[in-house]
């Protein structure tokens, strides 16, 4: 009985810390202003919607990875998938939860767009450095 109780409590705290961790990752990129290039490429003008995530992820896979953004992206990808499941489960039963999940998924998409912007800038830097040789 006791291990089962500890297991449930640990899972609940794990989920809470995971949500907060993903939100802290997303918050650290919330002040970023999108460049003209990324706005043209994605068609996103101010902020992304939940549905943009998959498309932005495809674009991200085309850009060279920056060494410091992989871990954060993987965590947010998992978070997006969990929110997707939650969305499907609660769409009809709990509308407020559905709305919250949609906002969170939009946040995930925004995070991915900011990452795309940084990767494009990184690619430009690499090209510029190669041009110098």
């Amino acid at each position, binding site marked *: 009985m006791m*291990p089962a109780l*500890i*297991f449930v409590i640990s899972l609940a*705290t794990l989920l*809470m*810390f*995971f*949500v907060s961790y993903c939100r*802290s990752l997303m918050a650290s990129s919330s002040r970023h202003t999108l460049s003209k290039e990324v706005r043209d490429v994605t068609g996103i003008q101010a902020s992304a919607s939940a549905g943009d995530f998959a498309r932005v992820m495809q674009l991200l896979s085309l850009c060279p990875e920056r060494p410091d953004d992989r871990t954060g992206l993987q965590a947010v990808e998992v978070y997006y998938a969990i929110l997707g499941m939650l969305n499907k489960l609660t769409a009809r039963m709990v509308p407020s939860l559905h709305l919250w999940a949609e906002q969170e998924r939009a946040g995930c998409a925004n995070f991915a767009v900011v990452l795309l912007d940084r990767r494009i800038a990184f690619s430009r830097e690499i090209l510029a450095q190669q041009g110098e040789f």
Partner: protein
Amino acid sequence: MSGSAASIVWYSGTALELAFVVCSIARKSFTRYFFLNLYFLLTVGSSLARQFTLERFGLTSDQYRYAYFYTDALLTLALYVALISLYSHVFGELRVGKYLRVTAVMLLLGTALFSYSVVAQSTDRLSTKFAYELSQNLYFVGLVLTYVLWGAVLKLRETRTRLVQFVLSLGLYFSAYAATYALLNMGSKYSAVYLIGPLLGCFLPLSWTFTMWRHTDDTRLVPAQLVAVPR
């Protein structure tokens, strides 16, 4: 876990622990986060000591058993000190460092006394049993303390990204460890559960290194964005 998989996880974990230390030196934050660095240096030292005794005396030897449990207790103690150092960072401006240190020592002594009272009845291998019990209880205390620290971070509207992500990673690590321990105590028959522990050992240095590399001490975030449901 097969030998090769265990070796890969061991090498990855050790490399990530060293990466954190190198990264914090490169970022000129070694002394600022001294206890986090000390924890990883001790982890590397313990891994080497365990490997040495394993190769020299074998898996079933008393020497390996002592090396394993004592280093485990030492590492849990070091992680506890690292957690208290995060408390000092969060409460730094309130000038309550002295009270924090006293409370931390009292809590540690209390946990040690409780652990001793649990194992005092047994006659054989008292010291290794005590080391194991202390380690397990300190993990639980660590989880509770991290939860309280996270509450303080939200209440005090902490904006330092590095600090926030260090606390959150530690919370993830402690809760995942506690869940794994509970699953093992429930008598899980799935071998995959035994893989989780070593993999978790890689998670903490990975996420802390990522945080150390990506953010400076001046990087800030909006505290309101951390809570899932706005208040």
